[in-house]
């Protein structure tokens, strides 16, 4: 019998936990400032974080093999729930995303962020790699259906994340470069056709999305405010709680999507470097776990989940600094809110499970 450390027996990965707890701490600190120094808000968010961390540890107890077996059912359940949402979901914030089950409200699209990579990882691990064209085709369908269902809600941000989760598995599984480039070129070429079929006001909305500063009275305003806040932070920031709230008073999303702007303003470039390092640390740990996983399923799923995490961070930061379109993606563990945090923590729980559920060498 191998000698297992305490952390392994408890199925926990210390580095990952340290990174995540650090991130949560930073999140609470920034949120206090962005949330108008509302201590009750911090308590609530802290509770959510604690619960999420607990959930993560619980999920880590589940062996990846079991997850692999359940992946198809979870995926199908996710699809059913997505259809249910479209048909009868509760309307919150102008889009149909929530299902109210009486005692709990939850977003099926969040479930998909986990279910899709799990399904794809299981699907590819089943056979040899790189996957055959047939498999790739089926995988594409498995990605497209939920993405379309989510985009129809409409929830552009989440559909992008789900698509990213799926595509990253495809990438890691070794789909040939020729195919990747070929597909990208076809997608690029077919955009003019799509453009032709759009109504004028839809075209206007797309243009505004791509260049928000062309709509200074609408979403462009957020970007302008955001950049002022960031730029004025300078090298060392204005200091905690010293951000000029007057700019961001007009940003209703200052404690959620645009919280990074508050962070930059108060902690400056130095703060940003530190934050980026923490994120990098977590991502590197995720990739390491995936590299050292015992089987293909673990490797694929681990990388997929890590890549998804990266996409969250990259898209949110990119949007806040005015480089990417405004698509409503929160900054992991910093932005206020609970649903994506739960999903992320479950993902990390799965990562820890992948790392710690090793079969004995004698197998």
């Amino acid at each position, binding site marked *: 019998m191998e000698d297992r450390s305490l952390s392994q027996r408890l199925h926990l990965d210390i580095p990952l936990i340290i990174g995540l707890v650090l991130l949560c701490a930073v999140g609470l600190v920034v949120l206090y400032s962005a949330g108008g120094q509302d201590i009750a808000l911090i308590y609530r968010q802290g509770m959510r974080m604690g619960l999420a961390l607990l959930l993560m540890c619980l999920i880590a107890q589940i062996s990846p093999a079991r997850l692999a077996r359940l992946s198809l059912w979870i995926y199908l359940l996710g699809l059913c729930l997505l259809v249910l949402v479209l048909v009868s979901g509760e309307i919150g914030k102008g889009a149909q995303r929530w299902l109210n089950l009486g005692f709990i409200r939850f977003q099926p699209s969040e479930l998909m962020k986990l279910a899709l990579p799990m399904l794809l990882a299981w699907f590819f691990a089943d056979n040899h*790699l790189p996957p055959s064209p047939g498999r790739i085709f089926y995988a594409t369908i498995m990605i497209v259906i939920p993405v379309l269902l989510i985009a129809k809600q409409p929830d552009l941000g989440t559909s992008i994340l789900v698509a990213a989760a799926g595509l990253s598995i495809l990438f890691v599984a070794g789909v040939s470069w020729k195919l990747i480039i070929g597909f990208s070129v076809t997608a690029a070429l077919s955009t003019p056709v799509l453009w032709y079929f759009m109504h004028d006001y839809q075209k*206007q909305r797309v243009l505004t999305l791509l260049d928000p500063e062309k709509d200074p009275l*609408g979403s462009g305003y957020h970007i302008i405010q955001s*950049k002022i*806040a960031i730029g004025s932070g300078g*090298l060392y920031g204005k200091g905690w709680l010293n951000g000029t709230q007057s700019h961001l008073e*007009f940003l209703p999303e200052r404690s959620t999507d645009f919280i990074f702007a508050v962070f930059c303003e108060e902690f400056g470039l130095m703060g940003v470097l530190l934050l980026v390092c923490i994120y990098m640390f977590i991502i590197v740990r995720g990739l390491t776990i995936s590299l050292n996983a015992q089987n*293909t399923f673990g490797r694929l799923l681990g990388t997929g989940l890590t890549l998804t995490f990266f996409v969250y961070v990259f898209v949110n*930061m990119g949007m806040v600094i005015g480089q990417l379109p405004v698509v409503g993606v929160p900054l992991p563990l910093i932005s206020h809110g609970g649903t994506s945090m739960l999903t992320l923590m479950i993902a990390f729980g799965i990562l820890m499970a992948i790392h710690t559920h090793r079969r004995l060498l004698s197998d």
Partner: protein
Amino acid sequence: MPAEFHLKDAGYEYLVISRRIYFAGMMMFLLGMLIVIRVFFLQVVMHDHFTTLSQHNRVKIQPIAPIRGLIFSSDGVLLANNRPSFSLEIVPEQIKKMDQTISDLATLITIEAKDIERFKKQIKKKHRFVSVPLKFNLSDDEVAKLSVNRHRYPGVEVVAGLNRFYPLAENLAHVSGYVGVINEEELVTLDTSNYKGTTHIGKLGAEQAYESLLHGKVGHRQVEVNATGRIIRVLDRTAPVSGSDIFLTLDVSLQNLSVDALGDKRGSIVALDPNDGSVLAMVSTPGYDPNPFVNGIDSKSYKKLLASKDAPLLNRALQGKYPAGSTIKPFLGLGALDFGLRNIHDETWCQGWYSLSGSTHRYRDWKKEGHGHTNMINAIAQSCDVYFYSLAHEMGIDKLHEFLDKFGFGKKTGIDIIGEVAGLNPSREWKRKAYGQAWFPGETLIVGIGQGSSLITPIHLAVATAAIANKGKMVRPHLFAYARDAISEEVSKLHEPSAIGTVEIQNIEYWQQIIDSMTEVTHGARGTARRVGSGASYRMAGKTGTAQVIAIAQDEEYEVDEVAEELRDHALFIAFAPVESPKIAVAIIVENGGSGSSTAAPIARRLFDHYLQGEG
């Protein structure tokens, strides 16, 4: 062997995956660096720029609404104008207790419930830092009171703007239409970025049809404001583009004359230029004053308009469906010629009534004694019903429907403002669909004199009349003449074809024969409108019509004075002049006016005298 194979496979798979993982890791690192570099750029390179902007001041972006284009008639009369006005606007973000603020303001000036209701609805839609109007058209008194108390209400502004005004009110209401406050349905398909800062949009008439020309493009400015909201300086400004002025084909003097001619009667007049379909006058009486609609008419007045049995909100020219009555006869006569059923000189015997073989039911002629031997010219000139009963019977409903269909009866003309409805050109299929019954021969006779289920709108009647004047060309009626760009003064017309079709017949001679018959109506010794044509210095062609509103039993007399007003026949008249090269074609309907020749026809003479000779 299998074990080896398995091992090699796993090794290869591991290689594939790990290569990809390394690649992904590298990409993520690079992208992360890109973010850091960009942040560096903002926070270090552009630091001073952004610091200046952040110091103690706020940057606000305000829309600058464009000035709406004006609407003119062809004779240069202003139909829609912008008048300076002040409105009370509130920036919701800056108000802590909205209800309290509103009731405080209500102690200074009157604020109506409907204003508050509309205001509350709009707050939900707009961004919180854009000001929302609470009340329009403040009086000078109100402006003064608000300005004096301004310091007590940060976030409450008196904003100078322009209010749309229609100087010709009732006479032009159906043509100009009006603008009104933008509502929720309109917001869905609106280009919201171009309409920021705009509160009103065209709802009916020319205002609606040419909204995109009239509106212009919104501008914006970036301003610095201090803590109390006062503007310190303007950082950046993009000027709005004013809307283009539009010129309509309407002749206002003719329009006013038409309204006057109809007096206090309900009715409609449409006058067109037969050459290209320009609408010279389009009247529906009684009209209504569109000005109260601009900022929201109060419900009491609105209910009054709705409840009035004269239906002032109905645009009779486009939406009034009437039996054509005898005005249909020239068209049917043409049909008979075209189908070869009769020629212009064939005579029929009119004894004052007509029966179908095998039936005792008598279809009466308006002249009890009958017209005697009647050919087509006389039948049109004197409006002989019996001639047309027999003509319709010979034609049969199918050919009749087919021929009238060439004139587009039962379809819309496609005039360039909204609200037009199609008339009804009855046929066998129509009756089967609508009533589940077969068509009876007796009904064909009734349709032959323009009664029964056939219905037409005044605009269509005018277009069909113009088609006779044109010997076949069906023009597209339009109110729009041209637009004039606000800055460049460049004139632009719309490129629409002026004709919607041609009525093709076998022999173009037939057109002239019908025109001659119609000229007999107004200039012949026994024409039903001979009094109208007498003494005119030009020749006109026309046809009177008297459309029944209620059915008269076989042997009853129809005494106009004894019948209640709303049950009296409608008076119709169609005409064009000068006959040799027509410049104007009209369709006139006076509801419950009694006889076409005594009530409707004289109006045409007044209109023609004015238009052709500048009189009256």
